[in-house]
């Protein structure tokens, strides 16, 4: 046997035959032992039926998991399309009435339609976040890096939350350097991170101000969203970034969210090789900080 020529143990698998004629897998090991008296061989024959069975089970489980994961992605993509399409009609219909394309509306009707529209937007954001989370988790989110003007990006983000701020009578203060500032990033995804943080701040702040800051550091840009809301106890600082989870304190609120926005924000930031942190105490508001590299 060639096994004798190598100084380490080797084993091969053969089929053994039991007394009753049934076959079973055996592992035959040959282990050379070199002594002064000469080279000896330790041989072993092991019935590996059980090991083989477990290996087969693991393989099957892995295949089933891969299939399930694939099905999950297809399912989420399909659901997203099937939800967004009717949502699109609902939004257009509301816009048509609000734009008075089909006749004048009174203030009560306008209020009702604005509420409907706000909730359509909210549902749309939720769908986008869940879909993005599933893509990010599966490593299927392709980032599109491009040079992005931060003044423009911040303006667009702030514009998107105008109605929500107005509804709760909250102030939003932008603080960013007056000189032009750009970054190479996936601008849509960066917008989504800031929007998620702002929406989170709006949701949990009943009165006061929200600050959105942009602070250039050496190789990174630091974004900060600070609110004067209910705050988050320290023990929940990690939990709030996990999907579908949120602070215990916030769960009691009527308007408690879905626990999706911050989880997605964290994954997007990590995908862009950045970092996200929170500092907060109950009753003292919260500050979320995001660092994004200037060049990926």
């Amino acid at each position, binding site marked *: 046997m060639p096994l004798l020529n190598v100084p380490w143990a080797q084993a091969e698998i053969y089929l053994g035959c039991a007394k009753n004629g049934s076959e079973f897998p055996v592992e035959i090991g040959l282990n050379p032992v070199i002594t002064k008296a000469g080279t000896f061989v330790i041989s072993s024959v092991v019935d590996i039926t059980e090991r083989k069975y477990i290996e087969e089970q693991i393989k099957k489980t892995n295949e089933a998991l891969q299939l399930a994961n694939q099905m999950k992605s297809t399912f989420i993509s399909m659901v997203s*399309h099937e939800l*967004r399409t009717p949502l699109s*009609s609902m939004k*257009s219909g509301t816009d*048509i009435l609000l*734009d008075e394309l089909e006749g004048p509306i009174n203030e009560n009707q306008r209020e009702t339609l604005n509420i409907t529209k706000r909730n359509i937007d909210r549902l749309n954001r939720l769908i986008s976040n869940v879909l993005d989370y599933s893509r990010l988790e599966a490593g299927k989110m392709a980032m*599109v890096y491009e040079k992005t003007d931060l003044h423009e990006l911040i303006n667009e983000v702030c514009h998107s939350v105008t109605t929500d701020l107005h509804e709760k009578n909250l102030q939003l203060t932008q603080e960013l350097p007056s000189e032009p500032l750009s970054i190479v990033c996936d601008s849509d995804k960066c917008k989504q991170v800031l929007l998620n943080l702002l929406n989170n701040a709006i949701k949990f702040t009943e009165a006061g101000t929200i600050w959105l800051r942009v602070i250039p550091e050496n190789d990174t840009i630091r974004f900060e969203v600070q609110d004067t809301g209910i705050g988050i106890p320290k023990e929940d600082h990690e939990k709030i970034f996990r999907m579908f989870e949120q602070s215990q304190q916030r769960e009691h609120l009527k308007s408690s969210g879905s626990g999706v926005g911050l989880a997605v924000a964290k994954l997007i930031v990590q995908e862009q090789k950045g970092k996200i942190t929170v500092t907060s105490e109950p009753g003292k508001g919260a500050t979320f900080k995001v660092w994004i590299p200037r060049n990926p």
Partner: protein
Amino acid sequence: MGEMASKVYIIDDEKDVALLMSKQIRALGYDVTCLYKGEGSLEKIRSGRPHLVFLDIRLPDISGIEIFKMLREDEECKEIPIVFFSAHSEQEHYCLNQLGATAFVKKPYDLLELKNLIKSILQ
């Protein structure tokens, strides 16, 4: 705009979406036509010569992407601005950067952004 109103085609099998969008675009003063399937749309575009086409990606017969490619290879239609219009936002990068579409509108769309886009293309 009077009799010379620019022509906008919407190709989308989701009739509700197309109908409501057509109302919004018509209100801006454009002449809007809705087509609800891919089949025959190329011929209708050839004969109608719209100034702008909104094209859904997922159509039941021919995909919007196939229609786009055929239009781009067609001598008479290759200059027509084509805006993809889809709930599949993940296709945006491909449609804009690989195919070279004029724009990509995600469903549900923001009306103000839609108005600005149409104006910027048809001005």
